[in-house]
């Protein structure tokens, strides 16, 4: 590349200091307009006769900081440090009007492509959109935190892009004035130096927005989604301060603080030419016709760089992407612009008539399209281009929404530090947030407390806080020279690990117990040629998964206990008491962007692996949280906001228990912290944040768990959801009871819990039955009745069906009840203690039959009151019942059995004693309840039938028996006794 020298000519004297200068071509390349922020004058030069003195406009009282020329070159606008925006006729230069005033200096001006609107902004808050016709302010766009230094109207007229001096880019939608995207910190912070202004520019076809990047580069953003498309990075050694697209969008000129101008071939993303200057170039403009670039430096010297693009390549003004056609059809393709066109013609009144008519004949097209020398065969191509462009814009609009969604997702992605979805997701710690410069971030946040870190130059500062300050240990803050990025926390201690950084800084694992009887009980492990990827902490163990796919397990004292090889690269790990759960990749992602993950649960103390299997995720999502519920159920949360809990039902499966999309109020993201049986604990983050900041201290929000139920014709989703959740809890509890019973532990508290849930479940089912009856879903109602766990509820259902005048249904319910009673008596045959107890309960049920199911909590009361005369029954009854439920045929110690038997006998006696009085009660109730009569009578008859069928099945209706044939019943019982194997053994 040959270095040409370019002679610059002084345009503005100004001061000795560097000041921002602007330069512009008019449409026909007949004039060059320059201005300097150190001088109040605007100069209009003739590029053909540079030696001629320029025409000078002196209307401002202070330096001119911004210039803009309307697309048809009839109107010049200037902004100044003196807070005013002025309009002039062009090329005459007659002062027209002070179109607006600010309270602080103006920094940027831009016309939209029809010239009907002028955007002005500066150190003031807010960008003003001004109608050029009457000078009224159409809108003020507020959102920037710093002085706005660059404005650019999208050539297609939909958006305005703006940039401020602290490097924030905002996409505005012109129609509504809303912020579409805010890209924070994407451009360099220019500080308080007003001679450097961040700028941005749309490509002439409007598809990409060029913004100076943080790495001395230019970053291209997508028009509709604001996604980063690509960067132009090359030999600039300092940040870029100005850029300009060639009229056809194929080339770009960039100038940087390093006093160079680079010319880029945008398609090849390569620089093709460069020029070095004595001073920084602060503004450039491509000549609209031909191959030249006008430049001006910070000292106010300007020049024109001829033949910028090598002659071997296409001219920068050739093949201008066009929406313009020579025939007037062009307007049809821009229907939405019609209004603006009219405005444009009106705005023409600002300029003289000749120019006006010219401007009107100009279709609403881009400023750079106006080529005077039209190539003959151009027309055909133009039409083609136009069609092409048109379909493309329509297509764009269609995909716009989709893209928006995906970009939302992308933003979520920052949590797991994953930027591109089709990639396999990287390892993460549950409850960590990505590091942010100068701010604290969470290494670990769980239901117990948090570990935060902040990076200083050489070291980090780590603090461990417990949410519960009254009981949690007080942990002094620590200084971390390793640069830990992973951590995990539980009641006993915390574990930290850092990735390796070069050879010097090896990956280290550190465990720090919170209280220990021995001094200096923290320990370190160093890994050579291996890197810790995830850590987890459990009751008495520490686990680390490394880059070699090793699972290393240590005791909390630091003993290296196990090293296991895992199947694939780790995603995350979580620990709870004895259990360790690890998620690994099985294979690369599917083409449909689905992560292929596998989980394993290890029981560390037993050395077993109770479960392993695929970890399901919503298609197109990735794992964002993984952990245990407070009860110890494994659960996961993915980026689409679906929470899943592992259950051993159906041989081990994941149940979707929460969906953020159902819950989400617009603009909220849920950052999961933990969950228990019925609630999800999360931190609600306002969009676009997807993770919480350390300060102010985040507050947990409780959300209800709910299955993603389809909306049924019953319209009782809440009840159905409760029904399913209760079922789930019941099965979980029964599972635990089994496990505990196997271990020979006391299951009483769990039994109580199970009993409560059963009661709640019956209430829920009863309400469902009611709504089924009302909704005429009779089959569903009978199914539900079969699920009721207590007879009394069934009777309540019968009553309900009768009350609702559904005799067929009542009949069916009755049959169900009979079947149930029959099966109960069969059970009764097999075991005496149980049957006795059941009979007792049944007697009560019968007695309190008239009560509705919702009063179920009172069921047991009669039992208690009747038997409490003799013994403290409540505990006992439950115990008997629970032991029945757990394992009935299981042999027990003799002592237990006899006690059990005696107790139950006593209970039975108590029940018998109480029997007659209850019967009386019942009889007094009967006449008052006409509905009850029928089913009860039938029942009695049937019971009698059953009795006559076989004597052993006789006492199916305890109330019947106890009221009439007490003596006989006991006789029957005695005759049963020998059939009980337990009794035999105890009799010996």
């Amino acid at each position, binding site marked *: 590349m040959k270095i040409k020298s370019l002679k610059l000519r002084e345009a503005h004297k100004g001061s000795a200091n560097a000041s921002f200068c602007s330069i512009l071509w008019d449409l026909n390349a007949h004039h060059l307009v320059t201005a300097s922020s150190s001088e109040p004058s605007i100069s209009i030069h003739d590029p053909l006769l540079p030696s001629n003195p320029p025409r000078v406009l002196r209307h401002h009282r202070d330096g001119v900081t911004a210039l803009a020329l309307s697309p048809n070159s009839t109107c010049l606008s200037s902004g100044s440090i003196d807070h005013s925006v002025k309009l002039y006729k062009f090329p005459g230069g007659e002062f027209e009007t002070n179109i607006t005033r600010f309270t602080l200096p103006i920094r940027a001006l831009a016309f939209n492509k029809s010239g009907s609107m002028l955007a002005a902004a500066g150190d003031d808050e807010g960008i003003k959109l001004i109608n050029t016709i009457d000078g009224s302010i159409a809108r003020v766009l507020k959102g920037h935190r710093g002085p706005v230094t660059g404005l650019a109207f999208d050539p297609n007229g939909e958006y305005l892009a703006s940039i401020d001096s602290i490097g924030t880019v905002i996409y505005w939608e012109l129609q509504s004035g809303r912020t579409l995207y805010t890209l924070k910190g994407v451009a360099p912070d220019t500080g308080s130096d007003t001679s450097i202004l961040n700028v941005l520019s749309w490509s002439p076809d409007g598809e990409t927005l060029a913004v100076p990047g943080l790495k001395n580069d230019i970053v291209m953003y997508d028009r509709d989604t604001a996604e980063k498309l690509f960067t132009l990075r090359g030999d600039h050694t300092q940040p870029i301060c100005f850029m300009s697209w060639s009229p056809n969008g194929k080339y770009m000129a960039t100038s940087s603080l390093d006093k160079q101008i680079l010319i880029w071939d945008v398609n090849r993303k390569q620089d093709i030419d460069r020029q070095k200057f004595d001073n920084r170039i602060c503004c450039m403009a491509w000549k609209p016709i031909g191959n030249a670039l006008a430049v001006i430096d910070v000292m106010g010297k300007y020049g024109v760089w001829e033949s910028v693009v090598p002659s071997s390549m296409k001219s920068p003004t050739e093949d201008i992407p066009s929406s313009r056609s020579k025939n007037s059809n062009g307007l049809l393709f821009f229907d939405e612009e019609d209004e603006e066109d009219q405005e444009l013609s009106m705005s023409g009144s600002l300029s003289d008539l000749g120019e006006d008519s010219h401007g009107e004949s100009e279709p609403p097209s881009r400023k750079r399209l106006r080529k005077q020398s039209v190539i003959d065969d151009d027309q055909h191509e133009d039409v083609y281009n136009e069609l092409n462009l048109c379909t493309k814009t329509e297509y764009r609009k269609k995909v716009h929404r989709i893209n928006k969604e995906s970009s939302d997702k992308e933003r979520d992605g920052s949590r797991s530090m994953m930027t591109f979805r089709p990639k396999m997701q990287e390892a993460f710690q549950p409850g960590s947030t990505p590091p942010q410069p100068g701010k604290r971030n969470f290494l670990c946040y769980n239901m117990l407390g948090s570990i935060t870190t902040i990076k200083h130059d050489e070291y980090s500062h780590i603090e461990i806080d417990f*949410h*519960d*300050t009254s*009981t949690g240990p007080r942990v002094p803050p620590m200084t971390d020279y390793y640069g830990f990025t992973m951590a995990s926390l539980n009641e006993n201690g915390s574990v930290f690990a850092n990735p390796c950084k070069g050879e010097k800084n090896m990956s280290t694992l550190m465990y720090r117990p919170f209280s220990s009887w021995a001094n200096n009980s923290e320990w370190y492990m160093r890994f050579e040629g291996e890197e810790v990827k995830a850590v987890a902490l459990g009751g008495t163990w520490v686990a680390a998964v490394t880059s070699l796919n090793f699972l290393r397990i240590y005791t909390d004292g630091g003993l290296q206990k196990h090293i296991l090889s895992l199947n694939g690269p780790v995603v995350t790990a979580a620990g709870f008491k004895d259990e360790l759960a690890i998620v690994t990749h099985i294979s690369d992602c599917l083409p449909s962007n689905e992560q292929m993950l596998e989980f394993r649960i290890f029981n560390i103390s037993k050395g077993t692996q109770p479960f392993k299997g695929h970890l399901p995720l919503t298609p197109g999502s990735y794992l964002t949280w993984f952990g245990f519920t407070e009860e110890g159920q494994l659960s996961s949360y993915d980026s689409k906001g679906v929470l899943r809990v592992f259950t051993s039902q159906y041989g081990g499966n994941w149940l979707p228990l929460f969906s953020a999309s159902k819950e989400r109020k617009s603009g909220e993201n849920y950052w999961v912290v933990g969950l228990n049986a019925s609630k999800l*604990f999360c931190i609600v983050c306002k969009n676009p944040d997807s993770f919480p900041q350390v300060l102010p*201290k*985040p*507050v*947990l929000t409780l959300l209800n768990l709910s299955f993603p139920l389809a909306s049924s014709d019953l319209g009782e989703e809440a009840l159905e959801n409760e029904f399913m959740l209760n079922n789930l809890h019941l099965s979980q509890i029964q599972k635990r009871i089994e496990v505990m019973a196997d271990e020979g532990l006391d299951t009483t508290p769990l039994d109580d819990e199970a009993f409560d849930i059963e009661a709640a479940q019956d209430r829920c089912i009863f309400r469902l039955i009611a709504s089924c009856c009302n909704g005429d879903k009779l089959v569903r109602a009978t199914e539900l009745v079969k699920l009721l766990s207590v007879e009394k509820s069934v009777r309540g259902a019968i009553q309900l069906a009768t009350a609702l005048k559904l005799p067929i249904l009542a009949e069916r319910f009755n049959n169900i009840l009979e079947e149930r009673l029959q099966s109960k008596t069969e059970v009764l045959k097999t075991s005496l203690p149980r049957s006795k107890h059941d009979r007792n309960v049944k007697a009560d049920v019968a007695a309190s039959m008239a009560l509705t199911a919702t009063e179920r909590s009172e069921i047991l009361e009669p039992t208690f009151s009747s038997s409490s005369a003799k013994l403290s029954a409540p505990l006992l009854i439950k115990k008997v019942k629970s032991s029945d439920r757990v394992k009935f045929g299981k042999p027990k110690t003799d002592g237990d059995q006899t006690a059990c038997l005696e107790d139950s006998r006593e209970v039975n006696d108590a029940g018998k004693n109480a029997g007659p009085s209850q019967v009386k009660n019942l009889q007094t109730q009967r006449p008052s309840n006409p509905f009850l009569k029928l089913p009860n009578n039938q029942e009695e008859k049937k019971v009698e039938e059953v009795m006559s069928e076989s004597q052993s099945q006789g006492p199916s209706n305890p109330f019947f028996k106890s009221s009439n044939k007490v003596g006989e019943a006991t006789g029957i019982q005695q005759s049963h006794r020998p059939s009980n194997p337990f009794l035999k053994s105890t009799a010996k």
Partner: protein
Amino acid sequence: MAGQSDPHISLFSAEEVEFMAEDELIEIVPNMRMDPLNFICGDFGPFLPQIATQVPMWLAVALKKRGKCAIRPPLWMSVENLTKVLEGERDSQGAFQALPFHYVEISRLLFDHARDDIPDMYMVRSLIEDIRDVRVHKVETSLEKFSGTSAVKIPNLSAMEVNIIRPFVGRALQAFYKHDNPEKIPDVDRASSGQTRVANNEPRRPLRR
């Protein structure tokens, strides 16, 4: 606040009004674990660390004093909202902006006990003082114009403000009634019917909202 009114003629002293305001609910974020509390005024809790819950003001203050919770300032106590309210108060001469009935007392309690929980504490404090001054001034000027009516209606007046003007307004109304009555003896029926109609139209404002 106490300086605003003469405690001898007020029905309630400022402290008593503050005491009543302590029954207002406010959101706290506890940092300890505690079972639900069952009071006569209701059940509060359970208290779980870092999970917000609603408690009466007095309980919040008591917990705060023991370092067991952080108080979340109510939404209306943001600088943004207060600025808006202040502007509104200054703009409209007659009307009062909607603020909680006990805003003076609640803000006072929070400033006394939960300084660290209020962002931009000094700004908020000065805004509330400004608002209070503007409103009190407005109340006083409107009382100057107070003339022979049988009822006074001022919506959105707060407890403390009502407390200040209550004795004066009450007596003034009595006086008006007394002075008007003898002259209007033939019209007593009409006047009293008019009076009751007004009273019916404006149901008495309960002390607590």
